[in-house]
């Protein structure tokens, strides 16, 4: 698998997110309060809200449009809501974040 460096951990605020643009749409990269990093499609399973703009809590994000809560680990909607977004493989090495290139490209 090929990895693409996308930036530094410190570029993302704790409990925050940044976007990466890919040819197939945006990917949201999250950093949690305990410095774990996750990437999922920036497209809420409900009505496509930009998840990168939501509030991050634990390993979840709440969509800014209608408050669905999406797990960053599984991409699944939590609670009573049903739906999922794609999660994208990602790794950090020495403060640099890498994203799996195939996944990045196919993310829709």
């Amino acid at each position: 698998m090929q990895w693409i460096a996308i930036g530094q951990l410190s570029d993302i605020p704790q409990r925050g997110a940044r976007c990466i643009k890919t040819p197939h749409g945006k990917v949201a990269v999250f950093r949690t309060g305990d410095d774990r990093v996750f990437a999922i499609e920036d497209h809420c399973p409900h009505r496509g809200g930009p998840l990168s703009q939501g509030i991050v809590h634990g390993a979840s994000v709440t969509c800014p449009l209608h408050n669905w809560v999406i797990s960053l680990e599984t991409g699944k909607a939590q609670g009573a809501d049903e739906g999922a977004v794609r999660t994208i493989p990602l790794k950090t090495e020495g403060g640099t974040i890498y994203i799996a290139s195939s996944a990045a490209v196919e993310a829709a």
Partner: protein
Amino acid sequence: MTEKLIIIGNGMAPGRMLEYLLEKAAGRYEITIFNAEPRVNYDRIMLSPVLSGEKDYEQIIIHGDGWYIKNGITLYKGHKVVAIDRAAKTVTSDKGVTAAYDKLVIATGSVPFILPVPGNTLPGVLSYRDLDDVQAMLLAAQSRSKAVVIGGGLLGLEAAAGLKERGMDVTVLHLMPTLMERQLDPAAGYMLQQELESRGIKVITKASTKCILGARKVEGVELDDGRIIPATLVVMAAGIKPNAWIAKEAGIATNRGILVDDRMQTSDPDIMSLGECAEVGGHVYGLVAPLYEMARIAAAKLAGEQGPGFVHNDTPTKLKVTGIDVFSLGDFADGEDRQEIVLRDAAAGVYKRLVLKENRIVGTVLYGETADGAWFNDLKKKAIDISDMRETLIFGQAYQGGAPLDPTAAVAALPDDAEICGCNGVCKGKIVSTINDKGLTSLDDVRAHTKASASCGSCTGLVEQVMKFTLGDAYNPIAVQPMCACTTLGHDDVRRLIKAKGLKSIYAVMQELEWKTSCGCAKCRPALNYYLICDWPGEYADDYQSRFINERVHANIQKDGTYSVVPRMWGGVTNARELRAIADVVDKFQIPAVKVTGGQRIDMLGVRKEDLPSVWADLGKAGFVSGHAYAKGLRTVKTCVGSEWCRFGTQDSTGLGIRIEKFMWGSWTPAKVKMAVSGCPRNCAEATCKDVGVICVDSGYEIHFAGAAGLDIKGTEVLGLVKTEDDALEAVVALTQMYREQARYLERIYKWAKRVGIDEIRRQILDDPERRRSYFDRFVHSQKFAQVDPWSERVSGLHKHEFRPLATVGLPQAAE
């Protein structure tokens, strides 16, 4: 060494005394009770609801069997004490039990007064005193035949209403010309009679009973005037007399009742007495409030304490018949030195009478509408000079200085020492402080801890109002609504604890208040962030990650993920230069839509997030700052053209609107705040549906608030009239600060006001200049840290991560 305490009688007075005693000195005494009634302590007051079927016996038990076991108390049920041997210090029951005492308490209550007429011992003649009487009445009621109640006082009427409820044909015989003549004046007595008659209860006044007819059981009642009323059940409710014979026989000093001093001590130093059987300071009592006072004093004495002694107080009387509201207090006889204020509303069935002496209330009779009873009682008790409110006094508390109120507001406006529960003498402050201190959330808790509404229950509504305004919307009869799933605490608790514990970061709040999640959720974090900003201006660092996206990027997210941008136009006033700058920005960034908003602003819709900083930069050059159209904060102050241009204008509404907006912009509030200023009551700026509005009039500025025109529609409440523009600004600012400090996150002003009470807000903001000033000052202080233009901050680089992608991944070279 434990001393032996024996109590004769297990009624409401000694029951209460034991509760106090166990609280103060558990284990000091070995306690034995003899009770002639074969049962535990129950709420005698509630016999009427049992009779009418609204409650059953289980529901009115005060101390169940388990309570006696738990507290190591021996209760002899069905043992009537027949002798006291003071020399040997023993008592003996009719079942042959003899027990020795160190201290003896006599609490034998009263016995019903049985008319000394022929036939009064016939089967079917009952009194109304205990559960046995009620059960006998219920049995008789099964026949659904005729009942006569002798006595048109409190007890008799409750019995009559209950029997009627149970399907009997009921006639009340009353010796006096009007019902309840000791509690009601003739007018109210008359209305009461009308009401009872309309329910099918027959009432005969001036009815003197000659005898009770019947061979082996009751068949009817004959009056002195020869009339005969057929009946199979006769209830004697003609009064009570203190049950003092056993003390008298033992040689203890008695008069009408057992004579005691103000600490419940009889003539024998080892014997005390309390309850209806006791006579103190020339009074005997028939209502529980003073008996509970006796209970408190007796318990203190038994515990070896030296508290204040017993003082006489008038107790209000209420009739516990569902659907009939009667309240009576004090002395309402006419007199030369007395004046009265009377209000009658025949259509509504309302009669109110206040008797005044030297401008102070000495007596009150309320019929049909008794909500103000507590207030009048308070005025009477404190002997407050009412000259200033004489004109409106009779309309009740709600009318003192303004519009009518909802009941919660009326209760909210009561002073802390206003008595809420007459039976137990519990004042409002006590309930509020106990609720807060102990974190009580249910009526049962409040009853258990304060005793309020634990006796006759007629104040339950009031207590619930107190709970409602103390706990706010969070009070639902079950429990407080937690803020979110991360905590069990409600918003108000959290706000209070943030202050009380000096918590100054989200982390500290979550730690100290034992949050169940590591970093909260999207519900609690923005709320906490707001509370901290509001409570610790300058000390707390705003946590942007806890803000909703709109506030984080200072623009409104739209459904397609683009943003809308609204520059501030003070008071809705603009000019050619500003409009030109907006036009340029729209062209340059190809903004797809431009719209005029309801708040007199211009909205540019469809701005890409990446463009936001550049859009702001260009707008900033033209002098614009953020319009905060996205914020839980001051949004807009709408104005009309006012005296500058309009022929009707009374004041410079535009100028005032701009002044308010420049003063208040940038402040964060629990929910959005929209304001408006109209130059005259024609109200072109629609100020009467805003969170805060000002209507200019010739004599000054009318301050409005708590309007809504969104999901809910609601006209504003009037806070009051102020004279100058400075006063108007101060009032508006103080009001907003009060709201900022008290409301729950996302709670609009009108909801908060409903919870807190319009009157309370008016009292703090308009009537109390010091309070107003301190709110004002706190607002001014917090503005020092809030009035920073978020746009220019971001144009100069703050939070630039928000607006740029982290990376752009291209296609060909990235493919495998």
